[in-house]
């Protein structure tokens, strides 16, 4: 059961442009994109920590925390990525993409930054020098989502693109290891269903994928097939318009001998949040009847940290929820 812990007050002018909210790796701060600024909210003091101005001239699509909680990388529509230190300000402006940057993620050690863009490429940057290392042009449409494997030295990067392909890359060589596609119910009138978001499971073996038909799937990345499929309702799949947020919520085990299965939390176009048990596919929570939060606004971002879940809708509502089994 999700209970609202708090609501983060966002800037007025950013309404309708909020796309990303992220817990810092230590869970103390939440970064929310506010047009060209980043709002940092302190969970401990329950107050706005700071508002970081960036040198972007176009709104930010996504932010990523560096593993040391010190830096924020922001992907902007002005084709640049900026790495900002919380106390020292801007460190790097990474230029190289030829179209809006959509998604980005750090690797585990924080020395590499992976960015994906509308220009169909994924670029790997050296965060220390701000230099570009590799360009992977393996997709044929905008690459909208990246996720780094939390396990195994973050050696595998997953990408989801509007061309309907989910690709797994070796982060060292940049070569494609596997392409996840051609699922049995993977079909539509237009041929392909664009992928809206990919997210690795905490153990790095599964990939949570949401596509624009509103169906959330868990892929076994090693074997290359779908192991679980979640639909918000029994009815027909609906064509979405936004990259709605999804995430795994790793429950903290109450009893030590057996870890509870992670939950799948998914946001939807009309502001609902669903939560399933990833093992039993049982719907555990649904905010379909909730008239207080995220009314009729697409959930742009869902991010979980331990038992906490942060949801952000496009209209600028941002809530932190707490999961109680």
């Amino acid at each position, binding site marked *: 059961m999700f209970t609202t812990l708090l609501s983060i007050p966002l800037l007025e002018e950013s309404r*309708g*442009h*909020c*796309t990303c909210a992220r817990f810092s790796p230590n869970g103390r701060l939440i970064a929310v*994109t506010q*047009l060209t600024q980043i709002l940092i909210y302190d969970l401990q003091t329950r107050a706005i920590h700071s508002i970081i*101005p960036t*040198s972007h*001239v*176009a*709104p*930010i*699509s*996504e932010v990523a925390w560096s593993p040391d909680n010190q830096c924020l990388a922001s992907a*902007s*529509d*002005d*084709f*640049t990525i900026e790495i900002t230190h919380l106390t020292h300000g801007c460190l790097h*402006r990474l*230029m*190289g993409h*030829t*179209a*809006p940057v*959509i998604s980005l993620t750090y690797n585990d050690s924080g020395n590499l930054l992976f960015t994906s863009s*509308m220009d169909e490429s994924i670029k790997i940057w*050296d965060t220390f*020098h*701000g*230099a*570009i*290392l*590799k*360009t*992977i*042009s393996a997709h*044929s449409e905008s690459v*909208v989502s990246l996720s780094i494997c939390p396990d195994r030295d973050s050696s595998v990067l997953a990408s989801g693109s*509007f*061309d*309907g*392909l989910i690709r797994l890359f070796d982060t060292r*060589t*940049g070569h*494609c290891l596997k*392409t996840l596609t*051609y699922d049995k119910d*993977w079909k539509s009138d*237009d*041929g392909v269903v*664009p992928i*809206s978001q990919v997210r690795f499971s905490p153990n790095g073996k599964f990939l949570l994928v949401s596509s*624009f038909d509103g169906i959330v799937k868990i892929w076994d990345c090693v074997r290359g097939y779908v192991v679980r499929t979640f639909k918000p309702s029994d009815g027909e799949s609906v064509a*979405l*318009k*936004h*990259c709605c947020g999804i995430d795994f919520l790793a429950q903290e085990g109450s009893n030590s001998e057996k870890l509870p299965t992670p939950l799948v939390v998914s946001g939807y176009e009309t502001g609902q949040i669903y939560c399933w048990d990833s093992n039993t596919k049982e719907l555990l929570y649904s905010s379909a009847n909730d008239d207080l939060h995220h009314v009729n606004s697409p959930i*742009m971002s869902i991010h979980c940290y331990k038992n906490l879940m942060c949801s952000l809708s*496009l209209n600028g509502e941002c809530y932190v929820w707490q999961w109680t089994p």
Partner: protein
Amino acid sequence: MSGYHRRSYPRPPSSSHRPHGSAPNHQGPPYQEEREPSRSRYNNDGQGSFQETRYSGERESIGHRYQQPPSRVYKDQKHPDSGRVPYAARSIRRAIDEHANTRPQPFFPTRDSRYSQGNSSPTAHVPLKIAKSVSSAGKPVRSLHSRPAPIIRYSEVTNLTAKYHYFDPVSKKLIHKDEMSTWNQKGKYPITGFVTILDSEQHPMIQARNPEIKSIDPRKLTSPTASISHRKLRNNLTNVARIVYDKYSVGPPPPCAIIVSPTSIINNTMIQDISIKNYFKKFGVISHFESFNDPNSALPLHIYLIKYTAPNGKLSNLDIPVKSAYQAVKEFKEKGCFIMGSNFNVALNKEKLLEDIKTTLVEENIKKAKQLSAVAISTEKKDRAPIAKNQKITMERPKRSIPYDLARAVNNKPCLFVSRVFMALHGFRTEDFKYKLRRYRYSKFLDHITGLYIVFGDLLECKKCFELESGKMTLVSRSRRIPIEIRFVLIPPVDQLPTRFGGFGKSTNLSPSTSSASHVKVYKTKDELINATVKYILKDLKSILDTDIRKRLIGPTVFDTLNPTNFPELMSKKESKERAKQNAIETAAVEQKKLRESTNQDFDIFNLYGGYTRKAIKKRRTSELSDISESISLKKKKLARPMAHLLNEDIGSKENTPTLESATPFDEFDNDHDLLSSTSSSEAEDGFIDDKQKVLTNESPVTTPETPQDDSLLFSSSKPPKVDVTADLYKPSATEFPETVYKEDLSILKLSTPLSIVDLQNMVRDDEDLFLLKELVAYKEPNTVNAADECLEYAIWKLREWKKNDTLIKENQLKLNEVPFAPALKIKNGPFKAENIRKVPDRLKNCYLPHRRKLHQPLNTVNQHNTESVDKENSPEKLSKREDTVKPEPSESVVAQEISSSRDNRASNRRFQQNIEAQRAAIGTESELLSLNQLNKRKKPVTFARSAIHNWGLYALEPIAAREMIIEYVGESIRQPVAEMRERRYLKSGIGSSYLFRVDENNVIDATKKGGIARFINHCCDPSCTAKIIKVGGKRRIVIYALRDIAANEELTYDYKFERELDAEERLPCYCGSVNCKGFLN
């Protein structure tokens, strides 16, 4: 995997198959040819039903595993290999065996026995004898023995030891030492010595010398028969190596000087010593240069002595000057030397050569001088009877007369003519002739459309020039680069009047009386003379009267009648017209003024001509303030005419009526007025920045720096960002129309973005601007200082920062992408993610995917950036270069691997194939494992990368020649019903049927899920490859062949040959970018 919907699969009922027509057409002869030679190597009938490139490696390894067993087989079996031993060898071996058996001798004979054997059979030519014994003994002997004992061969051949045998030239055979008879039977030598004589059989033999017998030379005996020599007859001397002259050399030094002498006498005076010197400088350092003059005339003989020396550093090397002299001579030995259009001989200065040349030339000159004087005398003589002579001359040449339009210029003087066609043909210019003929006293050169006329004042000179130069003078043709002889045509003066013989050019039309003194014409009577004179005088008087009347009477009358005062009605009309024009311009100027915010036009002094514009400006000035409010409403109104047009018009009017509008007192007054007012306005300029900032804050809230869109038009026409405001700017300019102090910068107008603070700050340049701005926004001085004003500086700084970043990023985007981002793709508000998903059309993708714009520049899937050189500016050029540097690595390795390929590789492969076949036959199974894909061996190194045509493309890693096989189209080979089923399934799942390739009626190759990289080949309307179906081992295979030579890194394409789709929606657009692209795939 990607690239869905690329090719539409032909409809099943259609009769034509994928590679249109190629299958039926090429079943015949072309493939016959392909199959014929391959029958032996392609005879593995059990080819796998589907071949796949990625399996090929596996198969090869299997093959290698099986390579070992055959060698073992050879060892164990009694192989028919023995059949290959030559028959003769076998028979000899057998013969030796038998010989050994037939003889009752020990197999290991002792030394003694060997000798005894040799002695007992003195004629023992052992091998021969053995051969004979074989034939006599026959096979039955051998058959008695079960098996011959092993033989040690050297025991048998000891008798063959060569040292005991000598060749007897008489009996012509080998003779054993013991048999040989000595010629010196008696064992003593004759006292008289030996002599060679011929015996009865004409053989030379040696005898004791006998005084009677004459010795003969045995060499001569054979001469008639042995006369055929294989040596080539030498017809020239062999080259002896040049012995370098150095300080140790003995004898006189080789010549290091050359003489340049003209081949024929040169009249070209423009050849100067320096040019010759420069010409020969290229062979070495010239130490001495001397030119010689004719001792008689002191004219240059054009003989030059050039001495070479070694360059400064190598003075000790005596060979260098010799070498350079030699080289200079060698260079011009055959083709001769042309310098400035003259022909020269170049020779080494040997002995008296210089003197010889000099004397001959001087003699020639003397001869020529004599001739010249003779000619001069003769021409002078001829002048006495000019008419006849002239006619004679003109008869020689095609008759040419001076064109009518030149007649006056030539003024009936003698001239030489060169045709224009001739000049144009060789690219001669008038200057060339001027230079060449500068020694002659010509009076002028007339360049005419028909040709060049060289007018002489004197017929004598003209003729002299003609005779000396015509056909002798040479000019270097600019088009052919060879000297061309110039032939002139002499045009003598035509005798219109008997008195007009061109003596010394003094006779002109205007002064016949003065020149009459020199007239040669003799009048018969005095009356005649008087008559003629009177005629001339009358003519002259008449002409003078004519001009006088024209000047003094007609002219003034005409001018008087044309006086405008005589035509009041016309003038009034004109004035009214003028006024209308003025009004039009005035209104235009007013509007223009409203669009402007200039303060300092006042300083312009308007020049005298454009007087009527004064009024417009005056009006502007008076209505300046009152117009401003009005101007806001009017601001969107466009100028009636663009400024440039106005100016043009005015220039025109100035030309037409220059006097009417000039310098009225009113103008001057106006100018003064302007000057006065302008000084007052410029005084108030100080501190306008402070004011302006205040204005700005009130006028626009800090957070929204953009002024309302309406205002932007007004501001935009104001002054541009030029910071250094100097007094010069305000200086009046002498233009017709007032100019703004700062140049108008309309570029701001074009920006789609709203005005930024920077734009605004740049716009407001001075007091007047500020004033207008204040008016515009209805600014009122604040009574109290707002608290918000404290943040003002920060807010402005922030806005400026933002602007700075914006321009920086825009520049960078352009640098990276070269093409601005398509406005259709621009995200209106909010980030990319906040926008609804939309499909980007392929056409628009070009604007943000640089690789899509570059044909034949594959974008590697993984592009390794060079970390050293990566810095902030990753320009596309750099990126592409880096790609290039990265690229060769794989290709090189492939090349190295493939270098041995082609023929050798294929041959060895064939052998290997045969082995495998044999192996298979031995095993007797139709196992798939052993079937080889021999097409794989002929494959060219290709790779796939992101393509400009469609997602992925196939690229050649190294150059491929035309008609070479490139790669096989590999995929699952399926039957027609399966293909139909799969097609339906693929279509349903959205993959499309692009990778289905029909082989024949029953078979389709499906590369959708399992296939080689040939499936990445894109369609192109101007393809570089073609797909052919060939039969390999009974199976039809699709193979891609090069149609033309393909460069490395070029994308491979072939024509998909889809059927024409009638439904417009079904048609697939083609992005191949070739010149003759049809626009659609189907």
